[in-house]
């Protein structure tokens, strides 16, 4: 350090520590913790009731799966706007195809995951092979898939089996079963991102596609993998959603894509790709689930949810986003 830089030195380490916290996805957890503390001490909310905790965790499962997929796609420098309608279609189809017949449960679950993968593969091919912009491709897919769902049924339809509804209500200690699915998915995605060559390549492609190509990375399979992952997780989320609501609805997942992007962004992941932490995205999911829960517990009008979300997104972008020099 030269003496010229010294006067600024007192501020720099704290800033560096903060930006390190942001990079590792810890910043959003600070807010999560503050919110949990506030709810703990707010009188008569019963936040720590085992019923309430289970509700929060179960509510986080569907959003969590979708946000995980979004996280992967965004890391690779893309975006997936079609996840909400993929959840809608798979959850509606789960109810319609199972239609109360226990023997169909397992084949339908498998089919929904495969369907999710296929839709992801279509997204990925259009983005990486046809080289179309991800925003537009997945926006088109949003409408396309949602249109297919409406053709399947324009009104609530179908019925899942008791096994599925039981699963969605089952708990292991205080932990609901759907949340365990999310935990397993987080572990799997973490393994993919942190411990496989594909994960490294995804960060590289998201950071700078040309640099990755110059280093010998095959860009196409990397991007295909990202969109397929997102599709598979959306298919899984659709099954969980159907299990929870017992019947299928042609609008079940609408808006989920924006919630998922919100979770990823307030977790500190860069929408430009190449930088982000899973811990942050999980924190983002936790925060969104808590906000919904807090508004219920504090008996505030549910219309406040969007207001609070809006404020939090803008605050997160202003504070957490590592700004680029002009």
């Amino acid at each position, binding site marked *: 350090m030269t003496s010229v830089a010294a006067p600024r030195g007192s501020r720099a380490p704290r800033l560096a520590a903060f930006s390190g916290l942001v990079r590792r996805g810890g910043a959003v957890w600070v807010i999560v913790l503050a919110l949990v503390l506030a709810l703990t001490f707010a009188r008569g909310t019963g936040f720590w009731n085992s019923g309430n905790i289970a509700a929060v965790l179960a509510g986080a499962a569907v959003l969590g799966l979708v946000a995980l997929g979004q996280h992967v796609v965004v890391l690779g420098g893309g975006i997936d706007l079609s996840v909400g309608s993929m959840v809608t279609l798979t959850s509606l189809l789960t109810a319609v195809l199972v239609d109360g017949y226990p023997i169909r449960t397992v084949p339908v679950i498998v089919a929904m995951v495969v369907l999710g993968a296929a839709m992801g593969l279509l997204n990925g091919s259009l983005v990486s092979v046809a080289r179309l912009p991800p925003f537009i491709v997945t926006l088109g897919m949003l409408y396309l898939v949602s249109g297919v769902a409406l053709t399947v049924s324009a009104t609530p339809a179908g019925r899942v089996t008791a096994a599925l509804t039981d699963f969605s209500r089952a708990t292991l200690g205080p932990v609901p079963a759907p949340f365990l699915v999310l935990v397993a998915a987080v572990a799997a995605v973490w393994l993919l991102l942190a411990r*496989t060559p594909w994960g490294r390549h995804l*960060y*590289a492609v998201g950071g*700078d596609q040309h640099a990755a190509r110059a280093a*010998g990375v095959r860009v196409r399979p990397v991007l295909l993998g990202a969109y397929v992952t997102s599709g598979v997780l959306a298919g899984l989320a659709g099954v969980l959603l159907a299990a929870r609501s017992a019947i299928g609805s042609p609008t079940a997942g609408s808006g989920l894509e924006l919630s998922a992007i919100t979770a990823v962004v307030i977790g500190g992941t860069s929408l430009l790709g190449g930088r982000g932490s899973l811990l942050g995205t999980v924190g983002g999911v936790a925060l969104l689930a808590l906000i919904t829960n807090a508004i219920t517990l504090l008996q505030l009008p549910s219309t406040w949810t969007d207001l609070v979300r809006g404020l939090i997104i803008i605050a997160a972008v202003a504070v957490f986003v590592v700004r680029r020099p002009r």
Partner: protein
Amino acid sequence: MPETALGARGVTKSFPGVRALDDVTLACAPGRVHALLGENGAGKSTLVRILTGDESPDAGTVVVADRETRLGAPREALGLGIVPVYQELTVLPEMSVLDNVLLGQERSRRGLLDRGAQRELARAALARVSLEDLPLGTRTGELSLANQQLVEIARAIARRSSVLILDEPSAVLSGDKLQALHDVVRAIAAEGTAVVYITHLLEEVPALADDLTVLRDGKVVSSGPATDYTTDRIVREMVGRQVDQVFPDPAPPAGEVVLRVSDLVPVGSSAPPAHLEVRAGEIVGLAGLVGAGRSRFLRTLAGARGRSQGGVDVGGRRVRGSLTGAIAAGVALVPEERKRDGLVLDLTAAQNITLTDLRQVSSAGLVRTARENAAFDEERERLGIKASGPGQPTRQLSGGNQQKIAIAKWLRVSPRVLLLDEPTRGVDIGAKSEIYRIVRELAASGMAIVIASSELAEVIGLAHRVLVFRDGAVVGEVHRDPDSAERIMHLALGTAS
């Protein structure tokens, strides 16, 4: 062992408006360091991109291990052991040093990364570029540029390459680091690897190179053992013969001093202050290598970049250090990056021309199409712009006509000082000579002109005198005479005696 590890046979490559490579033949032998030399724009970088599969040639072939080979992608070249280290860094700043060194060559077992093997490989490669003390988890973006370049070289070393291509490492490295790199390069060559080394730093050549090739205007001037070359011969061949006939002597400037620059230091520069006076009707050229500070100087004059000290006066009045201040004082810059900074490509020709002063073509707050078209016609006449009409999208025009529009838009504000940065880049020969004519005419009409260009012949031919930049500083001034080209080159390279 093959005779030619990597080479080119009759490689030709054109881009719109320019022939970047013309029938280039080159052979690099295993175990030898082959220096590739040439001025800015001589075609070195294009040649490297073709040799590494990043671009494909229009004609001719790439030779790998004595066999003619088609390279479709960088990955294919890498697969054949051809490893480039590009001039622009391709390390990923958000990834760790470890991940950067092993990017594209990760070691895995049963689908998962083999972290032990990864660390070992990265350590070994980093040790060879004397970065053995660097923690592997460091975020690469936190390193100095020199160390980032070394990380990139370590990545190349970690691949067992048969050909290593280094594109101007001395642009970022200096002193001990450069010396260390030379040692690595020699050691790698001794193991039988062919090394292609591109540099502007001629003093590197005798110590390092076994063979060398000089490129000029996309053609090979000569090629041979390095011992056959003296620095003088290299400079002479890089510059080539002057084409004085193209440029008649300019009329001597008669007017008084219009632009006076005193003690100017751009923000972020540690170079000594620059001085410059330009008279009405005078053309001053700025020469130097890419990154020597020419563009920064021009941008500072135009207020596009802050100044940490010094002042700019036009016609005896101080100019405020901002773009609007400079424009108000009559200083206009036609920037280097025409497509990014000079034009809005999706606007029409007429809209681009009038963008600098919409009040001229408006009344009652509304832009009048008729006046806009009239302004376009006026400039079309004056500059010889070839467009289907005022409504043609600028994107559809040729490079030369785009450049004329980039100049025309600034002529609309009737500047007293016109700054031109690389005014003929990506412009075909015909349009080039028209732009030269325009520059001369504008000077003759009393404008003070400063022109920066990587093409020596152009600055020398157009300007009354040339300032030479090196490492951000003005290192000399050269007047028009028969050997000005070589004197400028020596000044720019730092080989002046």
